């Protein structure tokens, strides 16, 4: 084994011993870091699940065309003819009877629909247009809306587009929050390491007198910071898992009310590796920023 490797191993075991020597301090720092990491990680997971839900929605926009209840037969024929033109890819007729029965089935509203004396739903066409640009879709929806016998048109992609936009803001917020908490993590690690350096000033002084290099003195503190970060990452995993477990039933309940099978997706192995890796990195970084500064103070106080 080379001297370098021996030094690394020695520093690592020293770091472990130091963490174990003050279990209470280690636990508190771990919890503080865990909470800081779990917030952006948890939000990231929720957003990921929502993104998957949004991804299941029809990506190709649809226009719903609701017919006037008093539309005459010639008007209906004219509409049918219009929908055979080239700018319409596909058109599907949904009669009000069909609409009512599917409503009763899918969203468990049979109690309500059964109590209706007459069908309040309109006949409708579900249209898949050729155009996919927002302008083209809006124009087509407006054109169709002006046809006689049409009560209303509804561009179905709007809801999906709005959700996508909201999720994009959410993603940006997660990154923002993640960056802020990265600073918190670095600061937490730095403070913990500073306390350790100050507590070991005698040892540092003696080590210098018998030939310790700066690197030798710094190394165990850097390992301590990295290990502390890793522990923080593991704690965050625990917090997120706990939160996920607590939220599982309420989310399933809410989803069932919407007739959805939505659930929170657990993190992938890569997600976990990235969070643990970043937590380790930021713990190390905090230690690195703090140890050099504090060592200079310790040395100049002699």
């Amino acid at each position, binding site marked *: 084994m080379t*001297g370098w490797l021996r030094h690394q191993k020695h520093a690592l075991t020293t770091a472990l011993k130091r963490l174990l020597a003050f279990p209470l301090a280690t636990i508190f720092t771990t919890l503080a870091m865990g909470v800081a990491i779990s917030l952006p990680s948890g939000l990231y997971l929720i957003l990921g699940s929502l993104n998957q839900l949004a991804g299941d929605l029809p990506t190709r926009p649809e226009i719903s065309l609701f017919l006037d209840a008093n539309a005459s037969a010639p008007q209906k024929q004219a509409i049918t003819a219009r929908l055979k033109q080239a700018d319409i890819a596909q058109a599907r007729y949904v009669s009000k009877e069909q609409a009512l029965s599917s409503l009763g089935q899918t969203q468990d509203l049979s109690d309500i629909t059964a109590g209706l004396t007459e069908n309040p739903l309109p006949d409708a066409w579900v249209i898949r247009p050729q155009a996919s640009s927002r302008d083209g879709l809006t124009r087509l929806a407006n054109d169709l809306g002006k046809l006689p016998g049409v009560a209303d048109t509804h561009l179905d992609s709007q809801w999906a587009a709005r959700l996508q936009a909201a999720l994009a803001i959410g993603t940006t917020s997660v990154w923002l929050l993640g960056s802020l908490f990265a600073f918190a993590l670095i600061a937490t690690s730095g403070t913990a390491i500073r306390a350790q350096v100050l507590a070991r000033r005698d*040892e540092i002084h003696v080590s210098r007198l*018998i*030939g310790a*290099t700066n690197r030798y003195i710094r190394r165990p503190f850097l390992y301590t910071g990295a290990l502390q970060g890793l522990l923080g990452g593991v704690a965050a995993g625990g917090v997120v898992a706990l939160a996920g477990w607590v939220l599982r039933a309420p989310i399933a309940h809410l989803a069932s009310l919407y007739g959805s099978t939505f659930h929170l997706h657990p993190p992938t192995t890569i997600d976990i590796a990235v969070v643990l890796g970043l937590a380790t990195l930021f713990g190390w970084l905090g230690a690195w920023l703090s140890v050099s500064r504090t060592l200079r103070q310790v040395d100049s106080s002699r």
Partner: protein
Amino acid sequence: MIQFSQVTKRYPGGHEALSAVNLSIDKGELVFLTGHSGAGKSTLLKLIAAIERPTSGVVSVNGQNVSRMPQRAIPYLRRNIGLVFQDHKLLFDRNVIENVVLPLDIAGFDRRESLKRARAVLDKVGLLNREKSHPVGLSGGEQQRLCIARALVSRPALLLADEPTGNLDAGYAADIMAMFRDFHQVGTTLVIATHDDRAISALGGRTLHLDHGKVEEISA
């Protein structure tokens, strides 16, 4: 081995601990530094180990100009110098053998080899049966011997001792001085700051007397 030429050390505040000191110590010599406290004995030792830098003049150890040595080279200089302190400077959060092994850990020695050497040197200072004890449980004389063991474990060519028997009663002091004589006999260069006249007369060797920052050779 050690040369001082025109070395002056002035501390902030104006106190001049050494004034234009010239001296030369050869390899394998046993040298005592005497003088009342505050005469500059500790300062002289600190300059040799580059713990402090001279205000002016040149301190050279083994041909290296210690007074101008870059900060990053100093650890390697110190690994060749054994330091014995009056206040021992032991680490109380670890046991006897871990204290002795520290210089070898720092130098990157193999762990098993380090422990072997640490035990050998503990045997030499008579503390082998205390290797698992903690320094707090040792008497003053034992603590001093532990400090000496730590200074010797890396087999330095030069040993600097600052009042090694300062806090010890006569019996312990004689033990420690006898130990120093043994090291001198195997070729180690020793510089010992002390005002223990009995020890000096018992061991013989060269004596440098410091008075108000000036060095004066005392012939035996």
